[in-house]
């Protein structure tokens, strides 16, 4: 038996130690694989899509992912992956933005801005010493564009005096690239220990000159300035009809290097997303068509939501289409569509039928949102 006594272990070509030993018998290691509970982003693999799989309107799309664009009809889809480097890394879906079929005209106000909002308390309690310039978050993801170009993304830390951090990278046409960005702490950063918006990641695909600035410095924090979100951008992708941009495997983690993506089970990822959006199917009857007494009903949420949810819409039972139905007569032929939210909390909600009458039967799906 022998003991190897060293202060550190480093690869011949590396610039930093992989393992650093300490005099108290412990060590610190930069391990990159098989780690759990590191990703601060929900649905980074683009698997969860409760609202649907194809979208054109501004707003939420795949779970947690929000997109705004200035004009035209641009599709946002959950796109299946069947080959390529991210497929080999275990991903089966991307979030794909497709430009309109007619080439867009550039303008100072043009924008295409996918984004995800993260709760402040998840940053505040992440273990990131965000006040220290020597403590890091690392953002990693796969990206592919149908047009070769340099893209710029940015993030905003909202609490206190809002701070922004931009970064850029260049893609070859139709070629996947894994992007890794180290984000240092900064004494001006603040993350409240609450359920408000703490950090928003903007996977910006284009800004016209009204929102960019040649003086914008990438890879450092600065006071948020809506006229200087990124450096000035090339408009080739934006003005190319049917141009596409795909990304997946989004991971934001504490530390100065990217670890392997934290693949979670479908159920685990869905539950995390349900903090912000839930589909709940309701079917309740008094048991007798002639016995009407229901007026409003309270139901438990599947998991505690971020905030008391909004009833975004309602639909048929078990589906995202059709109408919520209420039967108010004994002959089963008179039905009042729709439902009204009476109230909600973070763990329950109450609804009544669209009618102000009592009724004996309600059936449908409620779409509840507490997004940031």
């Amino acid at each position, binding site marked *: 038996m022998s003991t190897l006594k060293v202060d550190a272990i480093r690869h011949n070509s590396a610039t930093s130690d992989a393992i650093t030993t300490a005099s108290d018998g412990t060590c610190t290691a930069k391990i990159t694989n098989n780690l759990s509970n590191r990703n601060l982003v929900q649905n980074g693999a683009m698997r969860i899509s409760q609202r649907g799989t194809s979208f054109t309107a501004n707003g939420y799309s795949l779970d947690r992912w929000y997109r705004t664009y200035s004009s035209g009809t641009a599709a946002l889809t959950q796109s299946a992956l069947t080959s390529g480097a991210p497929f080999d890394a275990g991903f089966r879906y991307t979030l794909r933005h497709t430009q309109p079929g007619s080439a867009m005209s550039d303008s100072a106000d043009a924008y295409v801005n996918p984004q995800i909002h993260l709760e402040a308390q998840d940053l505040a309690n992440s273990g990131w010493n965000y006040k220290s310039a020597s403590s890091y978050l690392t953002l990693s993801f796969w990206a592919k564009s149908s047009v070769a170009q340099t893209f710029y993304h940015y993030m905003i830390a909202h609490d206190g005096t809002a701070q922004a951090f931009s970064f850029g990278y260049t893609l070859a046409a139709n070629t996947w690239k894994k992007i890794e960005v180290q984000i240092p702490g900064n004494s001006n950063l603040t993350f409240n220990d609450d359920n408000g918006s703490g950090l928003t990641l903007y996977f910006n695909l284009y800004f016209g000159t009204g929102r960019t600035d040649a003086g914008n410095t990438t890879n450092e924090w600065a006071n948020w300035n809506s006229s200087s979100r990124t450096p000035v951008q090339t408009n080739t992708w934006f003005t190319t009809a049917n141009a596409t941009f795909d990304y997946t495997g989004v991971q934001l983690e504490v530390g100065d290097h990217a670890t392997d993506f934290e693949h979670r089970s479908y159920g685990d990822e869905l539950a995390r997303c349900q903090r912000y959006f839930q589909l709940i199917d309701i079917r309740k009857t008094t048991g007798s068509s002639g016995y009407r007494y229901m007026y409003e009903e309270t139901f438990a949420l599947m998991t505690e939501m971020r905030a008391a*949810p*909004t*009833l*975004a*819409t309602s639909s048929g039972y078990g589906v995202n289409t059709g109408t919520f139905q209420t039967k108010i007569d004994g002959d089963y032929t008179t039905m009042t569509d729709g439902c*009204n939210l009476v*109230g909600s909390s973070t763990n329950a909600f109450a609804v009544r039928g669209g009618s102000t009458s009592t009724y004996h039967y309600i059936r449908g799906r409620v779409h509840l949102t*507490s997004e940031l």
Partner: protein
Amino acid sequence: MSLNYKLMSADPRTGEEANVIIRTTDGAQIPKAADNTDYQEYLEWVAAGNTADPAD
């Protein structure tokens, strides 16, 4: 997309004031909850000098 809102009718049985605002732009029904971002957006809309349509 310009926003517009309407007040939800009071409970016809109890007369209790509704705890929900209707965003008529898309039909969303928004609880009056301080940390609901839709309600925060409504309060900003009101603070900007707008007034919700009365309940039916």
